[in-house]
């Protein structure tokens, strides 16, 4: 084997100026931190929006002074109108689904870790990478800008169903410029995601270091790689969907607006369009989107677990990876299950119901891999593992709700209730958030060179874990009684007795939010004052732990790594780096 020698010491100097180093940086590590920070800010905004909604649901006449200041029309005197409730709901969904759940576990950690995990110095296209982040940033600013225009944010939900989203300001407050900005923001997000996915795929295929076969890649790299393919195909369809929506709104076309439609006593000058077409196009993106959110979580958890259970996952890299590939592939043929009650042909409902039930098979296989791997393991209950286990728990709980929703007969009853809201918060919202936290606690030492406080981490986990169950199990139960989603108040007689449950959820949600302050304090304090992190604090085996914390500009200080075996070389307390030539333990 030819090891290159003296030449390797030659380096390009890293950029020195503040702007090139930290703002318009082409370094994947800086871009990863930028994405993570953006997501953290977005998550905070999204969480505050959910508080405002929950307070209104529990105490409909409560004054929230900041809302009155933010939108004199939407919340006169601080009491929100039903329309403004929908605006907050729309922006909560949009910000959380796109700018938090899609961005953090994939673009945030993926950018930072993927090139290091394959032994590369940077992404394949570093400038394109920088462009991805800044386009995302502009998209985020546009989404936030909707709060500050006179009409406020759109009220058509994060799914922006036509014709409500397509006819313009006549449809209600926020449906004028609010919805235009929304469309532009999401179109930009699509472009950024497409560029990012392209970069991830090319980096994984092209920049792997010597010996890094596909079969030896870190499981998180695998998940990001699979996920990049799913994003590449899904966002390529959301982009034209946004464009057609904008054409309907601004150029007078009727793709999504049927004839004879009356809004606010005004006959709309459109004919022949189809709201179902919008739903088909949107959900062709939208269903893969929930897997785009959850696949990186699969990867992060599969990557973290072997380190803390000190043994390989059951089935090695193959079973979990093929399960992820199956999930990613099947995610493109199940979109119609969002449309069982949309007026689609009942035969089509059957066609989409069957693959929806099938997709549970690889999901269950993944869950069984994680659970069975715990058997007989010498488990270290550090915070990253707690969050991984929390992820598994939430994913199972959410997944069980999925069985009822996958079948048209039960879905017809449950579809418009808060059962669905609880379901997707469990299965893709909070489980992805928990995996993101697992990744944060796991990789923080590598990203910032400091250790987080373990006691505060555990406290944060237990409060979050209990809080999440209090809020969302209650939400699913109220949904089973028929509590209608998207209502800003309990107006129907049968819903009024649910008020105590609603207040319980609101209080739990506020406490759950307050628990996040522990996380924020821990992260900020540890960033500056935490104990210095060693190179490999967890005794892990993948390449990111084979360099300093944080890694140098070129990731490995000019060393060329050679990989000899897969990532799961664990045997109790013993473990072997992927770069160690002669493994003394049998792993995969």
């Amino acid at each position: 084997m030819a090891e290159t020698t003296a030449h390797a010491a030659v380096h390009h100097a890293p950029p020195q100026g503040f702007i090139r180093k930290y703002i318009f940086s082409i370094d994947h590590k800086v871009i990863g931190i930028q994405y993570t920070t953006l997501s953290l800010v977005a998550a905070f905004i999204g969480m505050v929006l959910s508080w405002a909604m929950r307070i209104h649901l529990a105490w409909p006449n409560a004054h929230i002074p900041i809302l009155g200041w933010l939108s004199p029309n939407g919340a006169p005197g601080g009491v929100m109108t039903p329309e403004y409730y929908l605006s907050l709901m729309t922006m909560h969904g949009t910000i959380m689904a796109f700018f938090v759940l899609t961005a953090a576990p994939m673009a945030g950690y993926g950018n930072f870790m993927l090139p290091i995990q394959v032994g590369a110095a940077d992404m394949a296209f570093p400038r394109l990478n920088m462009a991805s982040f800044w386009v995302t940033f502009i998209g985020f600013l546009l989404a936030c800008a909707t709060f500050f225009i006179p009409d406020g944010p759109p009220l058509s939900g994060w799914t922006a169903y036509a014709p409500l989203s397509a006819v313009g300001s006549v449809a209600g407050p926020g449906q004028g410029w609010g919805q235009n900005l929304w469309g532009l923001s999401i179109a930009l997000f699509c472009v950024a995601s497409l560029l990012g996915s392209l970069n991830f795929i090319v980096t994984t295929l092209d920049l792997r270091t010597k010996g890094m076969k596909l079969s030896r890649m870190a499981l998180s790299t695998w998940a990001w790689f699979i996920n990049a393919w799913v994003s590449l195909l899904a966002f390529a369809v959301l982009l034209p969907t946004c464009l057609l929506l904008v054409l309907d709104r601004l150029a007078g076309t009727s793709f999504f607006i049927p004839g004879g439609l009356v809004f606010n006593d005004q006959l709309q000058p459109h004919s022949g369009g189809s709201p179902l077409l919008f739903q088909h196009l949107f959900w062709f993106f939208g269903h893969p989107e929930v897997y785009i959110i959850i696949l990186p979580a699969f990867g992060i958890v599969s990557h973290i677990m072997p380190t803390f259970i000190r043994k390989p996952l059951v089935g090695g890299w193959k079973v979990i990876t093929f399960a992820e590939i199956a999930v990613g592939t099947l995610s493109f043929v199940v979109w119609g299950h969002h449309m069982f009650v949309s007026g689609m042909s009942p035969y089509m409902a059957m066609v989409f119901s069957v693959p929806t039930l099938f997709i549970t098979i690889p999901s269950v296989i993944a869950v069984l891999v994680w659970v069975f791997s715990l058997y007989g393991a010498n488990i270290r209950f550090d915070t990253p593992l707690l969050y991984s286990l929390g992820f598994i728990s939430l994913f199972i709980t959410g997944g069980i709700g999925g069985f009822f929703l996958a079948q048209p007969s039960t879905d017809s009853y449950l579809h418009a209730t808060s059962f669905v809201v609880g379901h997707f918060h469990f299965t893709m919202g909070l489980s992805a958030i928990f995996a993101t936290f697992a990744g944060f606690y796991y990789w923080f030492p590598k990203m910032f060179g400091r250790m987080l406080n373990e006691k505060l981490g555990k406290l944060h986990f237990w409060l979050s874990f209990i809080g999440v169950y209090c809020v969302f199990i209650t939400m699913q139960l109220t949904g089973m009684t028929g509590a209608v989603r998207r209502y800003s108040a309990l107006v129907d007689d049968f819903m009024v007795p649910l008020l105590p449950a609603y207040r319980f959820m609101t209080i739990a949600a506020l406490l759950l939010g307050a628990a996040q302050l522990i996380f924020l304090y821990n992260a900020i304090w540890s960033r500056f004052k935490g104990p210095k992190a060693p190179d490999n604090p967890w005794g892990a085996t993948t390449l990111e732990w084979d360099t300093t914390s944080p890694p140098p500009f070129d990731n490995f200080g000019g060393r060329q790594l050679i990989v000899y075996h897969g990532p799961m070389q664990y045997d109790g307390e013993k473990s072997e780096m992927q770069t160690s030539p002669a493994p003394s333990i049998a792993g995969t």
Partner: protein
Amino acid sequence: MDHSELAVAQDGAPVEVLRREHGVLMEVDPYRIDKKKLGMWIFIISDACTFAAFLFAYGYMRIGAPVWGTPFGLSSIVNGVVMTAVLLSSSLTMLAAVRAAQTDNKNSAKKWLGATMLLGAIFAALHLREWVRLIDEGWRLFYNPTGGAAQFGATFFSVTGLHLTHVVTGVIALAFVTRGYNQGRYDQGHVETAGLYWHFVDLVWMFVFPLMYLMNAH
């Protein structure tokens, strides 16, 4: 930018290595595909999905419309056939340019690239002439002068507009590649990658022409 150079292996033998963006050295993998080329393939896959979504919307609108209308007469079809011939020829000239660049025949490559750009520009001009004619006849994104479905204009202009944007972008990109190639900043790999894009745009037209023109001929 990556480039390969010779280094000395531990046993003293020379070995070809790849110098990476940040100065890292790696052994050249004979199976590694050029990253620009791979990136272009990935882009093409994604862009194909975007076109597919537009064409799906067109099919959905068309099937759903009680009266669709087929406005294209002989002159439009002839115009379309000429456009198709022009675009197909431009794929051939692009092939010749890539072949010339691969054999380091720089002058010949530049000539063929020029011919490709010229054919692309002719295609765009013919296409715009068709658009102007339709607009003169009263077709709009939201209006059908023959009384059929208003979606005809919406789908025709958006699908062909998206394709036209790709052609114009392609011509501009080819101009940049030709300039860089002429100055020695770009190599034959860049020409080949630009060629991949160009053939893709050509291939898309092979779907757009029958679906948007031939199916709408009366």
